[in-house]
């Protein structure tokens, strides 16, 4: 397929006949990566699937469990809770992060004195270690001595127990992780915004479109592939939520923040039910794989639509 002369898209490289030498060079170049991914990515996946059919306490020799772990999983009330928490978390975390990231990116995408400082400020939470974030938020949200409750009290709003309250803890985690991820989303969106050709925007403004109108009707639709990527990325990360829970609530109070990966950790490395934990990990793996495939398909379809 030769690029047409009118086609503005970058020319695709000419396809030429592959030789054996090419193949070898290619494999030689990718083999370190393939080896590493295979060793540290695929082998553990296969191993944990195998483990999910066993009882293993990581100490004594494993015994065969058949589908026992899977049957137990279906009737495990804590696992059910963990799934609910993970779904609630994902359904709030992903859209909120996306919208905030988009708005922040819009705000950062202009020429103002000291803009790089603002961009830096937005991005700092992304590179801050989760442990530090956890400590900071634990104190900010301390029910008795935290500054957030002090402010709420001063302006006459009801205070909250945050991490200490079974009803509020998950939302406190959502708030903390959104804060941590908005910078990442904004960075990606900003890159997307800056790759939108200026003439499109200029044309819209000349035609009488307002700045806000241009943002929502021109820039945002053109960012669809970026949004698609972010949705997939944020969803995968939301389903794998662990660090923030580990450093703040440890799944509590009363399982209120026990999400699937935290429960896996607890079963595997606190109670040493490695086989059962592997069963959960396998289930989670299947769900993430499925969601990712669906999301990628949707994103691809819509981005093709956008380009059509």
């Amino acid at each position, binding site marked *: 397929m030769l690029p047409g002369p009118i086609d503005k898209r970058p020319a695709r490289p000419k396809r030429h006949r592959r030789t054996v030498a090419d193949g070898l060079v290619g494999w030689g170049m990718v083999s370190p990566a393939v080896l590493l991914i295979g060793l540290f990515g695929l082998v553990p996946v296969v191993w944990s699937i195998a483990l999910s059919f066993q009882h293993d306490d990581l100490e004594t020799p494993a015994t065969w469990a058949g589908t026992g772990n899977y049957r137990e999983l279906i009737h495990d009330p804590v696992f059910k809770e963990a799934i609910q928490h993970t779904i609630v978390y994902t359904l709030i975390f992903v859209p909120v992060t996306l919208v905030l990231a988009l708005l922040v990116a819009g705000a950062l995408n202009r020429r103002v004195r000291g803009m790089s400082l603002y961009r830096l400020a937005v991005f700092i939470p992304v590179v801050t270690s989760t442990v530090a974030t956890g400590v900071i938020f634990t104190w900010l949200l301390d029910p008795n001595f935290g500054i957030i409750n002090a402010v709420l009290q001063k302006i006459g709003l009801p205070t909250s127990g945050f991490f200490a309250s079974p009803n509020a803890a998950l939302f406190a985690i959502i708030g903390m992780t959104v804060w941590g991820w908005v910078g990442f989303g904004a960075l990606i969106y900003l890159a997307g915004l800056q790759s939108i050709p200026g003439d499109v925007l200029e044309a819209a403004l000349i035609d009488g479109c307002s700045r806000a109108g241009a943002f929502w009707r021109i820039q945002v639709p053109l960012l669809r592939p970026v949004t698609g990527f972010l949705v997939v990325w944020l969803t995968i990360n939301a389903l794998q939520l662990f660090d923030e829970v580990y450093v703040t609530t440890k799944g*509590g109070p009363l399982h209120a923040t026990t999400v699937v990966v935290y429960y896996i950790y607890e079963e595997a490395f606190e109670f040493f039910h490695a086989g059962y934990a592997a069963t959960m990990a396998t289930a989670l793996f299947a769900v993430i794989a499925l969601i990712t495939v669906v999301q990628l398909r949707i994103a691809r379809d819509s981005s093709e639509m956008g380009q059509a």
Partner: protein
Amino acid sequence: MTASRTAPRTRVGGRLRQRRTVAVSTLLLLIPVTACSGGSGGGGGGSSAPTATTITLSHGYTDVEAKEIAVQVAIWNKANPTSTVKLEFNGGNDGALQKTIAGFTAGNYPDAAYEYGSSAAQLARQPKLVDLTDEVTAPGMDWSDFYPSERQAATVDGKVVGIPALVDNLALVYNKKLFQAAGVALPNASWTWQDFRTAAKKLTDPSTKTFGWAYINDGSEDTVWRYLAMLWQAGGSLLNSTNTKPAFDSPAGLAALQQLYNMAVVDKSVYLDTGNDAYLNVFNSGKIAMLWTGPWDLSSILPSIDYGVTLLPGYNGDHQTISGPDLYMLFDHSGPRAAAAFKFISWLTSAKVHLQFAIATGDLPLRKSETTLPGYQTFLKKYPAERVFVDNLNNVKNVRPNIASYAEISSAIGEMVQSVLLGQSQPQAALDAANQKVAAVLAGGS
């Protein structure tokens, strides 16, 4: 995770994924490095005689303890050039069990490791564990010199699985100034639960956000062991004598939970610490009047806080406390290493050597005979507040059940206590729910 801990928790969280990448790349970097050092004929680290053994001691000591263990090891290595010890920091004792078990899977495990007492039963299943039942009866060992609670913590199903490494217990630590300001008489060793509750209520002042007491309410073993002390004082026990059935759903179990409920929910005199890190800071800010804590916290209390230490308040005159002894556990590598490791650990935990360690770090004496050595006076002079804790070792009457499923049982009890402290359950309902869970865990076997 046991509550016995001498240094502040070292949090092991972080960006896990990042760390894994770092680990992988470190691994890759190490391959050529080790290859090089192998090729250069063992240069650099001092030539070792062919008969020499080197054993590794994995530990999570930080600060003064890390410094002092290095001093002790240096003394040992100087005196025993053919049987030396290498220290390996495990990143913090909270993760010691996980690290050790991962080490077995990877085939790279230490000869000796510092482990929490609550990990003993889990590690007792490990085939590489060195059974010390016969060794501890050796004449030089003087096993009965260790406090009874330590020996019990080191024994699983009649098998001695480790040598005591640290002992502590809970006592009442109080801020004298807050008591004087509130006009409340200072606590003493004959306080009852009711005295304690009344004082805590008087010391609480919502307008200044001052609390009478603090309770670690993260549902971990920290939450559990304080409850256990109360349960035992009231005459109850966690499990039956054969560790096959729960026994805490009893009048004693209810009395203990009711006391917590009355203080936290009715009186609101308790600061509930969600994450185990806050209470000491709040105490240091003069906002908490009383703590139930152990000797490991004393070094973190600010000099500006004038504090006293006394026994826990008692129930019907029973003031018993709880102890969470930690252990050095030994793991077998074929050859002479296990024997060398045992020799070293025996030396390290012998009365004279450990007393030096105690004087340097403020750890309590491990052996009864340490308190009769002349150096013990130096210890008391340096740490006057620790005297109560040392005496309190004689108030340890019960130990936690040493069974592999303890972590799960602890989790169920932690949830029970938490639900009561948060006012989410009434004490009896919480007891019943936990009773069911623990019974299921014990019936499950593993």
